[in-house]
């Protein structure tokens, strides 16, 4: 297995790990972190597989990842602002139905 395949599989692993965290964690900040990990997994897969080109790496996935990072930062910023408001209003950074669970 080539090095780029190894990194690509690691990207898949990050994606699935992040998905697990998103589902299982109740604290909203951790859910956002889990989403970021999923994003990093996808980006790593994109860049790793771009290395399969025999000479120079394929530049298009690199540009896509730069775009993806900016979009992820924007989404995270909005999410954090929303979490802060929710916490200010309810006192806890969790979705309401999860606050009532024991």
């Amino acid at each position, binding site marked *: 297995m080539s090095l780029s395949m190894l990194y690509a599989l690691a990207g898949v692993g990050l994606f699935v790990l992040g998905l697990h965290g998103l589902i299982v964690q109740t604290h909203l900040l951790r859910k956002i972190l889990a*989403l970021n990990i999923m994003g990093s997994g996808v980006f790593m*897969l994109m860049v790793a597989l771009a290395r399969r080109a025999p000479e120079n790496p394929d530049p298009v996935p690199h540009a896509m990842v730069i*775009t993806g990072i900016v979009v992820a930062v924007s*989404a995270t910023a909005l*999410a954090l602002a*929303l979490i802060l408001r929710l916490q200010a209003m*309810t006192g806890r950074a969790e979705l309401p139905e999860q606050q009532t669970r024991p």
Partner: protein
Amino acid sequence: MSSGLNTIAWIVWIILIPLIGAMLCFMWPRRGNLLGMISAIATVVVVVALYLQLLDQGVIRYAVGGWRAPLGIDLYADGLSVLMLLMSALVGLGVSFYARDYFKQDDENPAGFWPLWLLMWTGLNALFLAADIFNLYVTLELLGLSAVALIALAGSKDALAGAMRYLLVSLLGSLCYLLGVALLYHAHGTVDIQLLGSVVTVHPVSYAALGLMIAAMVLKSALFPLHFWLPLAHASAPTPVSALLSAVVVKASFYLLLRLWFDVFPAVTLGLGLLFGVLGAAAILWGSVQALRQTRLKLLVAYSTVAQLGYLFIPFALLSPIAWQGGVYFMLSHALAKAAMFMAAGNILKFGGHDRIADLDRVAQRLPITMTAFCLAGVSLMGLPPSGGFIAKWLLLEAALTFEQWLWAAVIIVGGLLAAGYVFKVVGYAFTQADHSHDARPVALTMEWAALGLAVGAITLGLIAPYPMALLAIGDPLAIREVSP
């Protein structure tokens, strides 16, 4: 004259005008209403111009930057994209009129309704015209983030929770979609939809990408059982935002699903069609029953959206061109009717200060325009003639009965009966006197007329069916001519 207008690249201005409008509204928040309305009207004008250009020239493929795919990004306009553009333009215009009186002008905060809504409109238009699956990812994010921010404008605990859940769902969907895009690109070396359609074959990567991208779109379109995020998000948002979300935003991901289904993955769709049909039927029945059980008006309308979205998935199981025409027509008429219904619900909410259905104190007499709008919208949702909803259900039933799929026909008819149930529930209470009278707060006339306008639009769709059908045929997006037996 027509040739002069035809040389203008309207397809580009449809995306740029709302973007410029958003920035202008941010720079001059005091003139927000004026600049916003100008941008809205300008966008509608440009959409109509593109419609005329499409009728003249046929499908339009535009290479941004002069670079053709696979190197660059293409924009693509065919009958289906222009139908979606017209749908969101009409709803958007109605919502813009409604919002002028709904939101109080907040001079302190430059980031209010208008910049957010105009950026959402930019995302919508860019999505409907995109021919590149990575470009679609960016437009999906534009759409999702603006929707979240707009929901949160309401400021209540429910709105914030609904917005947060919607954000998590939206980001999850987008990331699954992006992973699918990554797999497809690395398998085929392109992200252009047309090029992918010709090279995607049966292969593990195709199935993986198909699964990821379809799952993402189904999540974003709130198909049962992945609909859990919708009711609270749509019901607790400010009324014009609720109208936009139910009428247009959920349809955008459905549109993407159609594009993926027909243009990228036609070779590998397996038996998903039947699964979609079953889930759609479950959505119709379950959503309608939940709507009947609601005590709050906006939640009732939101569950009605869950139910009505189920109808959109029935054509996947029927596999006939008439069914697809019915599905698209359903999308259009539901958009107008649901937006009108939400606006009417919002007027009632503003009028009485609450939206408890049992306490609708003779609203019918006191808000006649609003109730007319609600009833007309209800006619379309129930599928009674003459209305767009009737035409849509007629086409679906015709497809089901032609192929002797009695079960689907039964579901469609039962769905109509249940819709009648919840619509008449509201209308019934609207004519009765409540136990305690409430002080009435005035509702601006523009808000009432906007609701009525859209409701009349839903009815009109029942009378002008040949025009949208002819438009849908341009470019043959639903492969109607190549029907498999």
